[in-house]
């Protein structure tokens, strides 16, 4: 584990629960982030359902840079930098398509669906000494996790599984079919992309549970539902999260992954009082039916409700994945992927798309207000006086994570639902990664390895 320098501790002080505003504005820190964080982390670049056939490709982003996510003739997923090795031109100019060749529009260097350089004009006589195999598009390491595609530039990075540090247990639940079977999810057509004037980290750490009642007050008042369409509960139920009938915790991992987790308990989700689903009965009945199958497959685990944010820039809201792509210290491009069950009836998919459009994305009644605040905090933190004032992440600072990983037999560090523990963990990890020379230094202290016990006790199946 890396010892933070005093300068880094000034920026991120987990003991006193403060974070300097500089980390959201300073260009030097931003440049360092591109190297230390984005060039070394595992990053979400898409989902297999977007490229089902050989030759299919989509664009993705890794940090500020564009990558091509392509399925080769070998049926494998390849991720490579969308920048020609000749004179640096953008090779692919489409968001999606199917092609076994990508021809650069400058001089015609031609790459195949694995990124290899396969042809170039004047090759004979012109480039006699050139070894084409050395001049393919830059390859990223790729791992597919339950259909989701992750890539990293760092050859020395641990496997994605190790990188997840036990949070794979939670990440898998979002990528499953509703009935609990594997690989049953697909991304709806149309990745929603928009630009927002705030630092990329601002929307990243999950879960900011205390913002909902004020940020999203208008959604509750006008629509009679919480931020994601769940019913609004009376005040006295505050210890239980809005729309949840079971206890919910803030859960984090030393690797920087953060999430809200609902402890699984027997008993069905309240389908009848499920707020927005009552307006979408086809979805409600579909979910009700599939949940029975889910219980058969997963046992108690079927009741687990979680949306993990994977360090550094991936976040979940329900079955919605948001990626925060940096575009300079004070500009972020958010790409949002909306998941449905691949084999769900069209009616259900349509109603879900409709639900997503109403609540999420730039037009979403909920997210509009998030964006307003994220933008406003960026503007109001810019000045030299404001820059010197640290941000407060002290909620429940004196409480160490409430329950160790063994209390519930589930991985992760559990803290009170209303606490800043996830933010403290996220920024602590950010500081470590920013400073660490290599993955040896980045290795987190292992505190979350109880998953096996949980599975062994028969809870998982």
């Amino acid at each position: 584990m890396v010892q933070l320098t005093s300068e880094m501790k000034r920026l991120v002080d987990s003991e006193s629960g403060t974070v300097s505003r500089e980390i959201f504005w300073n260009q030097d820190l931003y440049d360092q982030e591109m190297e230390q964080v984005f060039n070394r982390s595992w990053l979400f670049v898409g989902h297999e359902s977007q490229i089902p056939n050989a030759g299919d490709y989509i664009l993705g982003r890794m940090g500020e840079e564009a990558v091509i996510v392509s399925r080769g003739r070998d049926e494998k997923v390849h991720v490579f930098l969308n920048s020609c090795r000749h004179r640096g031109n953008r090779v692919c100019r489409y968001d999606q398509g199917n092609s076994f060749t990508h021809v650069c529009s400058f001089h015609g260097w031609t790459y195949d669906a694995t990124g290899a350089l396969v042809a170039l004009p004047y090759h004979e006589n012109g480039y006699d000494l050139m070894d084409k195999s050395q001049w393919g598009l830059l390859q990223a390491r790729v791992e597919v996790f339950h259909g989701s595609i992750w890539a990293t530039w760092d050859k020395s990075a641990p496997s994605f599984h190790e990188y997840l540090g036990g949070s794979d247990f939670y990440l898998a639940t979002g990528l499953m079919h509703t009935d609990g079977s594997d690989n049953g999810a697909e991304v709806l057509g149309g990745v929603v992309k928009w630009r927002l004037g705030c630092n990329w980290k601002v929307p990243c750490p999950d879960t900011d549970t205390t913002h909902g009642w004020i940020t999203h007050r208008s959604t509750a008042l006008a629509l009679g539902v919480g931020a994601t369409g769940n019913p609004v509960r009376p005040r006295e139920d505050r210890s239980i999260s809005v729309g949840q009938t079971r206890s919910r915790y803030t859960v984090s991992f030393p690797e920087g992954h953060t999430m809200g987790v609902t402890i699984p308990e027997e008993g069905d989700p309240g389908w009848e009082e499920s707020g927005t689903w009552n307006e979408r009965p086809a979805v409600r009945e579909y979910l009700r039916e599939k949940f029975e199958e889910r219980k058969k497959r997963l046992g108690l685990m079927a009741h687990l409700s979680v949306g993990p944010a994977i360090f550094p820039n991936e976040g979940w809201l329900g079955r919605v994945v948001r990626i925060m792509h940096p575009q300079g210290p004070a500009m972020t491009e958010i790409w949002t992927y909306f998941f449905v069950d691949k084999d769900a009836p069209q009616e259900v998919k349509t109603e879900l798309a409709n639900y997503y459009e109403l609540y999420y994305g730039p037009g979403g009644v909920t997210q509009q207000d998030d964006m307003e605040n994220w933008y406003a905090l960026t503007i109001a933190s810019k000045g030299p006086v404001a820059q010197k004032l640290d941000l407060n992440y002290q909620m429940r600072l004196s409480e160490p994570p409430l329950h160790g990983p063994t209390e519930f037999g589930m991985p992760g560090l559990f803290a009170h639902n209303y606490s800043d523990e996830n933010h403290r963990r996220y920024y602590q990890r950010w500081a470590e990664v920013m400073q660490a020379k290599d993955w040896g230094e980045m290795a987190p202290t292992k505190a979350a390895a109880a998953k096996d016990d949980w599975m062994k006790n028969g809870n998982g199946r």
Partner: protein
Amino acid sequence: MADLLSHEELMLRLEIEDFLYMEADLLDEHRYEEWLDLLTHDVRYHAPMKRNVSSKEMDKELTREAVEMSWFDEGKDTLEKRVAQIRTGVHWAEEPLSRVTHFVSNVRLLDSGSDKVGAGEIRVKSRFLVHRNRLEDEDNTWIGNRIDTLRRVDGEWKISRREIYLDQNVLLSKNLTNFF
């Protein structure tokens, strides 16, 4: 060359233009409830996204209604909710209200002919330039075209369908809080 417009067609176009300009006034003057009254009960309000695709595959440019994601896919119920949200006074993205101006131009009746004059429904295409200025210096412009279907209900024009084609791929504004 297209046939010359008949007098009736010209008068109809003027009537429709006037309707669209009046609608823009209601939106820009924050008279949202009156604006809702211009929509039929079964209105569809749809704004697909535009993908960068090969010019040979332009059929894949627009995201498909009800099958893929869009910027907006609304019915009257959800539009009413959006208006109610603005009226709560705590919808921070519109508190205070943004200054919005709708420019509407290039108004043209589609599939119109003399026989369409007096018809119950008519399709009209227009261009829009919507400008939003907010708080001190936040400034956004959205440009595109719309295809509206207008229906005569009790002698008045109402919008029964609005298709909004925004000329952006990555949305270059932080959110979409206004109506097009």
